[in-house]
């Protein structure tokens, strides 16, 4: 980069040299983007490729996404693309249509699929590709409930359906086809398969009001019975919490399962549901803390 910057300065292109300097330092480039020649440069698809060849990379997710707006190839110089993907999912509503449009044409299929889900436009992806990428995300973000929940919500809003086989054991069950039914959940509850049942109520094909009293009893059994290990209990609670968030029924569940407010906090799920519900979560959480 030094030879380029020096050359530009010697040619009298001080502003462009300063732009590259700022880019290298990962500082704010907004001012430079008022210069048409710089915009033309950052829009050139060969520039990120050339920078990539010169071992240049950017750590700042915001900067990468700012540049992607002009040209999707800037993803290539992102040092941690998974961070960009995470940011994209968590801030889906804030991503402008031009950036999404660029991403839908990206050569990186994860970005192509996620941008298609966010923009609800699947013209640039194949049907199987969506399920494959969601499967990757399920594995990559397994420990991050907040991001998984957000992704499931986005996919549900975009009417995405995935084959049941690989997603049954996770919050992605909300997207499976054929859907999990009320009957199945009731059978699972009667067999005391609580973890499975709690996960499966995420499916919108399950009639919430029918299963709710049974869920309540099952939850009480989970808390009072000595037969479940602590790990089983925690996992079952996490699943019930996520399903309730997906179904937008968290307040109803908190009435009989106030411990889920603590799990909500522990799993750093703040921002995963509406503000009114979060206020309830906050109060319940405070209450359980006081009780403790």
């Amino acid at each position: 980069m030094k030879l380029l910057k020096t050359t530009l300065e010697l040619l009298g292109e001080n502003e462009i040299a300063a732009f590259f300097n700022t880019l290298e330092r990962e500082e704010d480039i907004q001012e430079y983007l008022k210069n048409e020649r710089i915009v033309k440069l950052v829009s050139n698809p060969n520039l990120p490729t050339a920078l990539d060849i010169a071992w240049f990379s950017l750590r700042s997710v915001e900067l990468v996404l700012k540049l992607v707006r002009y040209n999707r190839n800037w993803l290539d110089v992102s040092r941690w693309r998974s961070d960009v993907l995470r940011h994209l999912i968590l801030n889906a509503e804030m991503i402008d249509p031009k950036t999404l449009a660029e991403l839908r044409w990206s050569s990186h299929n994860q970005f192509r699929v996620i941008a298609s889900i966010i923009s609800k436009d699947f013209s640039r992806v194949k049907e199987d590709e969506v399920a494959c990428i969601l499967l990757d995300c399920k594995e990559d973000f397994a420990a991050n409930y907040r991001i998984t929940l957000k992704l499931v919500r986005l996919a549900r809003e975009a009417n995405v359906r995935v084959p049941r086989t690989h997603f049954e054991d996770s919050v992605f069950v909300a997207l499976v086809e054929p859907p999990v039914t009320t009957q199945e959940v009731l059978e699972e509850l009667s067999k005391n398969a609580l973890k499975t049942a709690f996960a499966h109520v995420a499916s919108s094909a399950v009639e919430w009001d029918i299963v709710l009293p049974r869920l309540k009893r099952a939850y009480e059994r989970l808390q009072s019975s000595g037969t479940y290990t602590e790990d089983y209990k925690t996992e079952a609670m996490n699943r019930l919490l996520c399903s309730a968030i997906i179904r937008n029924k968290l307040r109803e569940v908190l009435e009989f399962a106030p411990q889920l407010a603590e799990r909500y906090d522990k799993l750093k799920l703040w921002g995963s549901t509406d503000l009114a519900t979060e206020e309830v979560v906050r109060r319940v959480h405070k209450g359980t803390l006081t009780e403790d």
Partner: protein
Amino acid sequence: MEKSLLRVVLEELGYYDVSKFFSAIMEPEESMLTFEVTENVRKLLDKLPDVLDVSEYRFPPKVVLQLAKHNPKWLLFCVPHSLLGFIVEHDIQLTQQELEALEKGDSEAQALAQLLRGYEQPTVIQKPLSDFLFYAVRRLISRISLRVARLAYENNVRVMNSLVQSYSYRLLIPLAEPPITTKDVLRMLSKNSIKTAFAYVASPSVDWDVVLPRLKRAYERLERLSYSVDALKNLLWSALFRNRLQDVLTVRLAEMYNCEGLWGTTDPVTEEVIRRMLEKGGEK
């Protein structure tokens, strides 16, 4: 590589002449070093050497020698021993300004300038020139190393005898000061130290005609004992340096000359003898 970055940015900004300049100096094989010296390129030729860090940018000798025609400071942007190799291989004479530019570089560049300038009288060199010379002859291919040694000898560069001996470095035997003499060679031969003796005869102070019959007998002894490649290499090198290869040439040495890629290091008549010897595969 920065070259694609330079190309993309400069062409997008409309500096096609500058882009072509960088392509030429960064891909000399492809472009055959053709670039137009426009006003922009002139600016770069003049000013880049002052603002770029020499340790970060290195170009091939062919490139810096071409650029040095416009600004001698470009010579500093080449690995000094590679530049030396190219200069001796292509018999290039640097100008006064180019030598002065090298003298303003780092210790290796200064050593190169000193080696090329030479001395009025035989002079024993000190560090860092001796370090540079030892390093250069080790790194360069045999054919070029021989030329470097010849140049150093002709330019009155001499190396402390003890230093040459302690490194047992045959390539710099001719430069030893005090020089290795006929007596030294005869002593080695009598001790049956054939390898060392063969290396010593490279010294111009050794009376070749006196030692030649002894060398031949030693060579025959070596044949009976099965060949020692290192000893043969020493003899080949010494004979080449002394310009007496025809006196000692055998099929084995001719084959070694060919294998080591030494073509061009001796006179055409001797090379014709070597060629015939290789074709026939028989003794001279």
